[in-house]
């Protein structure tokens, strides 16, 4: 008798579980699982958005991509953006977080100042920066000239377009990492710092040998997430340098995929480029995991 009751309870559990999971399952399968399964087969077809043509063509899309100088350029641009942005971001955000952690009062005001760019939508603030960067009407050149420096063409110069985008992205994202580091710094037990100070360690040594190792999981997190996000950069490129900038100097891989799919209609080729992007993200993830295991001090 008791066994039957338990069985019924189990059945009720099953039924309830699947009813609760139903909405997420159906949407997740349709819009996430099916895309994951179909992206590779899709990249082996010449699916065309405009003509509706669609046949299996093997690896031709990949061969096509590897013959395109623009494709290589987009990969180089992506690495350029990610490398410079993540490095500068790490240094600056850690620096400001340490200072903020030392500040006694007024922390909230500084936090608001640093974090405001993060909460605003990229397009809305990119509009402002387009003007700031304007070679003749913008204040940046005025400031450069004030210090006796040569004015720049910023977004219109193939050499400076990417650094300009990086500068904007740093401004936009810095506050996020500062907050993450600040939370990390505040979770370090104060006694450890004090003990080191009592033992005669100066500020720099305390930072180098106590704070930094204890902060290593947070640093690892910031670098990992920062790099993955940098690989996916699209919005500022599309808004500030439509067409991929002068001489395609800001055309990153996601922008290249977007152009292929929604301006040329070549969905098959775009899918192939997406697969390559995913391969890059995955490889990066694995490298960083290896490095992480070596240097991150376990909590």
């Amino acid at each position: 008798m008791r066994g039957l009751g338990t069985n019924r309870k189990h059945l009720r559990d099953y039924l309830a579980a699947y009813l609760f999971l139903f909405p997420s399952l159906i949407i997740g399968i349709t819009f996430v699982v099916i895309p994951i399964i179909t992206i590779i087969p899709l990249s082996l077809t010449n699916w065309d958005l405009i003509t509706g043509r669609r046949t299996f063509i093997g690896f031709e899309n990949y061969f096509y991509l590897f013959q395109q100088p623009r494709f290589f350029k987009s990969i180089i641009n992506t690495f350029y953006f990610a490398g410079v942005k993540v490095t500068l971001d790490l240094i600056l955000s850690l620096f400001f977080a340490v200072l903020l952690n030392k500040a006694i009062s007024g922390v909230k005001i500084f936090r608001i100042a640093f974090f405001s760019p993060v909460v605003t939508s990229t397009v809305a603030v990119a509009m402002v920066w387009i003007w700031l960067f304007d070679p003749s009407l913008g204040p940046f050149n005025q400031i450069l000239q004030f210090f006796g420096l040569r004015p720049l063409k910023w977004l219109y110069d193939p050499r400076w377009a990417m650094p300009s985008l990086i500068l904007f992205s740093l401004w936009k994202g810095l506050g996020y990492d500062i907050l993450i580091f600040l939370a990390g710094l505040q979770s370090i037990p104060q006694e450890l710092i004090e003990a080191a100070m009592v033992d005669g360690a100066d500020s720099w040594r305390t930072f180098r040998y106590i704070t930094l190792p204890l902060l290593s999981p947070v640093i690892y997190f910031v670098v990992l997430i920062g790099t993955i996000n940098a690989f996916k950069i699209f919005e500022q490129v599309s808004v500030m340098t439509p067409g991929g900038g002068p001489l395609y100097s800001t055309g990153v891989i996601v922008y290249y995929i977007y152009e292929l799919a929604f301006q040329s209609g070549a969905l098959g080729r775009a899918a192939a480029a997406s697969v390559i992007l995913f391969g890059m993200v995955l490889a990066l993830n694995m490298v960083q995991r290896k490095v992480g295991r070596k240097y991150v001090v376990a909590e």
Partner: protein
Amino acid sequence: MWLRNKWTVIIYLILAIGALCMVFPFVWMVLSAFKTERDVWAYPPRWIPSEWRLENFVEVFKIIPLGRYFINSIFVTTAITIGQVGCSILAAYALARLVFPLKSIIELVVMATLIMPFTVLVIPTFIIVYKLGWVDTYQGLIVPFLFNGFSIFFLKQFFSTIPKDLEDAARIDGCSYLGILRHVIIPNARPAIGTITLFTFLTEWREYMWPLIVINSARMRTLPIGLKYFIGEAGSEYHLLMAASLLSTLPVLLVYILAERQFVRSITFTGLKG
């Protein structure tokens, strides 16, 4: 003591310079939103408007349907947030508390979706939306985002920490599954649900790539997409761009400054757990 004071001054000085750099674009935006066209073209650039022109804001509404963009954005973002958090609460409860066949496989699939960035899946997702006939529709903007592996995972982790005794007591009192969810789980998980709600709202409010792809007609544009096209249409009429930018960032900034604590918690919490 003197040494300490000196360092404090230096720290505050550096922080102030940093903060000034961060705030500068906002200051420029606010000042310039009131400038006349002559001020925009002035050389060297004029910082303070020669006269404060409120008409810029009226003119923006004449050129682009900013109100429509706002309503679209509010509708789409609210629908996604409520739908996604609702679906995720249900799924997270099942995964955290119930025992059922194929549970570990479903859990594995949810985790697997976390490493797959949406950017990579844009093309096949677009094809599905296209085949459903959802291009240029609200459902095309909303439905694909109602599932989110991170939201489910995040809530599941939190639900698992709620003591089981509470639930057993409610069950003895004759509570149904939905009753337990409503009277035990949700009240005890309020901070986590609040965090994920705010986080989802913020993310979806700023969503750019998907609406850019799915929306063709002007009346369906969300705020970021409307502004993007406005940049092309306004050309060098920077004062109008600044007015539009101010109008669209002000609400978010105000909410942020008023609810700063919740914002910070939401970001650091989800950030560290992510």
